[in-house]
């Protein structure tokens, strides 16, 4: 029988235990399955740690408290968007800076290499400063994982 070729929209979810609340964020302890590191980018936080547990700062819209077992959703698509914006901007600046510097060498008495280097460095610094100012504003808190469900309520609920 033929397999259905319908593509399901997968969301990366995980379970964890709330161990602390800091400002609006909850710190969640998740179990690290080291053997599945190759399959899941969220497991990367476990690499290099002696213990088999990792800690994540997550958004807490459900007001979970310490001791709650929760389900969290990791905004993987947002990570990709953010990375594409970040490295895309830097790469574009690098190329345009070098190109601009190269063209400038026809106007000023400096070698093409020198003007290209100067143009490139200047463009990367300017784009870095631009990202520094606007990146946070664009993504705000969207890059934090979110608690989507409280699976087992802890003692704090009374």
């Amino acid at each position, binding site marked *: 029988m033929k397999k259905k070729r319908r593509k399901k929209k997968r969301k990366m979810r995980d379970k964890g235990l709330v161990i602390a609340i800091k400002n609006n964020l909850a710190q969640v302890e998740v179990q690290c399955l080291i053997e599945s590191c190759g399959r899941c980018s969220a497991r*990367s936080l476990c690499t290099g740690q002696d213990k088999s547990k990792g800690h994540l700062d997550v958004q807490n819209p459900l007001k979970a408290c310490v001791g709650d077992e929760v389900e969290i959703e990791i905004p993987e698509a947002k990570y990709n968007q953010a990375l594409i914006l970040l490295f*895309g901007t830097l790469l574009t600046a690098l190329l345009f800076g070098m190109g601009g510097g190269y063209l400038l060498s026809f106007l000023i008495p400096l070698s093409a290499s020198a003007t290209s280097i100067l143009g490139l460095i200047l463009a990367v610094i300017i784009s870095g400063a631009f990202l520094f100012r606007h990146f946070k504003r664009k993504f705000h808190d969207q890059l934090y994982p979110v608690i989507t469900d409280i699976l087992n309520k802890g003692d704090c609920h009374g």
Partner: protein
Amino acid sequence: MELAAIFISAVLVQNFVLYYFLGICPFLGVSKKIDSAFSMGLAVTFVMSITAVVSWLINNLILIPFGLDYLQIVSFILVIASLVQLVEMFIRKISPPLYQALGIYLPLITTNCAIMGLALIAALNEYSFVETVIFGFSSGIGFTLAIVLIAGIREQLDLADVPEPLKGAGIALIVAGIMALAFNGFIGMLT
């Protein structure tokens, strides 16, 4: 014309992954989804381009004038590690959750031998500054092309009946080998 030849050669003919077989770790590790593969490709392209710039500067302004060519490998390792550290610090500053999510992602680039290979091949070919940057950029584009292509194939392979022992890395390596053979066909372009 020379720059166009360098670009085409690095992207299609002497592709870092499919011709030199460098950078296989992220090629297999981050090629399960097209989106992740593309963002990894962009990150590698940026680090490759910036490595090309800095390694050219160090090679041509310090190592060659002072007769220290034998220190190329050591100095390039240092340059690449420092650069990735800088990129990590920058990401940590502008977005702590993104830094938290990346985890092993960026160090995977540091230990990517394709970056080291790029610095050494660029020095060996005695490219000018502009040629070096174009070489670095196009090698990154070649890497992105290869990783996105294999990610597309692997997404389809999820739906295929792959024999149990070949699932995962086994079938990925077979696909990479077939892709390398296919890319060999581009060699005639630049003769």
